């Protein structure tokens, strides 16, 4: 009699997952599959679509505009992940205290993470308005630095939008690090104290190894966020000046919704999805290797 319910026990987790799975299937997996099919066609909107096989993928390989965008995206991802991660780690170390004033500062720091990107972008455009009396230019004028063109300068624009991403991601990463710090066994610090370890030794041998899972989450999320960045770019520079802030997603958007070349846009999107999946798998593998030691 007891064996019967056990027979169906495997179904219980699936039943709990079912609502989310159904929604995900309909809104994520089905569109992904449709996108895949679309990428093999020239979309006609009207009448039968034209089968082109892998032509769009071949075009992506030789598309120099896309290559430039991939380069910009890589720079965007690497700089924002490294700088955003390191700064967030420092902020988390400084704010791991439980004092009341720290909580106020934590809240203040967290505000960019919960504010709409469109609003942050508008703030950025105001702060970095390239007039001599712009906010950022007025500030650097205090140090006798001449006014800069910021997002209107092809050589600076990408770094200014990367700074926006860093500002936005620090609080998010900080919370992950704070959670990681709280999870480190206090006894390890006590033991290190007994051994006479100084602050740096404790950081290197206790804190950092204990934060590997937190670093892992931060890096993975930053990578994924960075590769599919769109709103931050589209609302600040629109990919300009001179295409120097063009990223993969803005290229996809322009190809799809401005040139209405849905087939090619779908192909590039699919490559981005495949790359993100690959990156995630790679990351998890590396993380597992490290945590084994």
């Amino acid at each position, binding site marked *: 009699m007891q064996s019967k319910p056990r027979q169906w026990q495997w179904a219980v987790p699936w039943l709990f997952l079912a609502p989310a799975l159904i929604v995900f299937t309909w809104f994520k997996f089905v569109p992904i599959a449709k996108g895949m099919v679309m990428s093999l066609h020239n*979309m*006609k*909107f*009207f*009448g039968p679509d034209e089968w082109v096989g892998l032509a769009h993928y071949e075009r992506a390989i030789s598309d120099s*505009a896309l290559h430039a965008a991939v380069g910009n995206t890589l720079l965007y991802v690497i700089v924002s992940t490294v700088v955003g991660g390191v700064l967030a780690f420092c902020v988390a170390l400084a704010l791991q205290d439980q004092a009341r004033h720290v909580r106020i500062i934590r809240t203040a720091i967290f505000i960019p993470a919960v504010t709409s990107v469109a609003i942050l972008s508008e703030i950025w*455009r105001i702060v970095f*308005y*390239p*007039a*001599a*009396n*712009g906010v950022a230019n007025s500030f650097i004028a205090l140090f006798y630095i001449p006014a800069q*063109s910021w*997002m*209107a*300068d*092809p050589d600076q*624009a990408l770094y200014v939008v990367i700074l926006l991403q860093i500002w936005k991601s620090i609080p998010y990463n900080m919370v992950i690090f704070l959670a990681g710090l709280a999870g480190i066994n206090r006894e390890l610090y006590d033991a290190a104290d007994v051994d006479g370890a100084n602050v740096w030794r404790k950081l290197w041998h206790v804190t950092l190894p204990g934060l590997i899972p937190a670093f892992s989450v931060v890096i993975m999320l930053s990578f994924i966020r960075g590769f599919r960045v769109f709103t931050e770019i589209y609302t*600040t*520079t*629109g*990919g*300009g*000046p*001179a*295409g*120097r802030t063009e990223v993969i997603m803005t290229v996809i958007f*322009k190809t799809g*919704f*401005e*040139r*209405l070349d*849905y087939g090619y846009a779908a192909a590039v999107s699919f490559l981005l999805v495949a790359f993100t999946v690959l990156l995630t798998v790679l990351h998890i593998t590396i993380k597992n290797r490290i945590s084994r030691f």
Partner: protein
Amino acid sequence: MKYCKLGLAIATAGALLATPVIASETVSVWMRYGENERPVLDKLVAEFNSQTGHEVDLFLANTDFETRLARAAAGGNLPDIIVNDATAIGQLLEMGVVREIDRASFVGGDEIFDVAWDSTLGPDGKHYGVPTSAQAFAVFVRKDWREALGLEKPQTWEELFELARAFTEDDPDGNGEADTYGYVMPVSATRGYATWFLSDLIWQAGGAFVSDDGGTFHATLNTAEVATGVEFGRSFICAGYAQPAAITATTGDTTPVFASGQAGIYRSGPYHIAPLYGEPGKDLVEVILPPAGPAGRDSLGEGEAAFITVTSEIPEIAQSFIEFLVSEKGQRLGMAEGMDSSPIVRLSVNKSVDTLAVRQDEGWATFAEQFGEAGHYFPRVPNWKPIRQMTADGFNRILADCDSDIGAELAAMDGIVNAELDRQGVLSK
């Protein structure tokens, strides 16, 4: 009595049979306008309804119009009529969603200016839409600033540049601070703004985007004339006489710059007359003809057009709505005559409507004069939009760097445009 009733019944039935019964239909219409234009459109629709008994289901969208249209096309949910920029015709034809209009059987077709009809020609020489409104670009200037500095209305490029310099350096608003600029330039690559803005200067310098070799085309950007036009545009930015951030600005950014008194020269269309007469104010703004370059004062001519979709099940009724829209009555209503609302008809396409008599305003008169004498349409390649975007990317690169090699960049753009013309099947061999 019985016979009397029967006779009445027969007479009634006879009368019913004699009068053709027209079922009231609903025409769905998508228009690239916003809520500012709704009062005018509601009035138009009410008048059409009272004349024909047919209803009109209006959908208005100023932003992402093409994207919504593409979605509707992909989902098989197109409206009966699309009213959009006439330049969208290439894209609509490429999508295969609009049907041919027979100009001969179009009621009132001979009342429409030929130059306007030309804007709806497909590459096969047939009409695929009906022009509903026309316009050309001119230049708004802060009259009070110009007069305060004792300068004349600029008539040449040199005078325009001098005005921009004076507006930037000579404190035209007299507040003692260097907080004003000359020329307001939307030259972002987004949606092709850089090309849209520079086209005037290129034509004024005597250049052209492509050469029409009789149905086929080849790019002609790498010429001394185009370089002159682009370099003149760049000189405002490099001298600091354009507003800051011009290089990433679209018209959404630039209109407030002029309206709020940060800069004093703005090239735009007649649709900005009403907003700019509101702010900074009618007394402070004047409309001038575009200052002439080496080859004249041509400026972009544009217009709107109505298209009937291939999916429409009531094309005759859809056409009757368009016939009403371009009739004298429809055009007058569309011009918001006697209303305090934004018009949907800028310059009338109907020969019977005297635009100036309806408008009675110097600014409108200037726009009408410019359209009549020096309006210049974009080249009639099958699909202009991708070329507009590609050239805008190139122009944006040139304008972003004061030391960039204009000739080399234009030569590269020629290659890109020719490749696109080839893709569209119209490259001259």
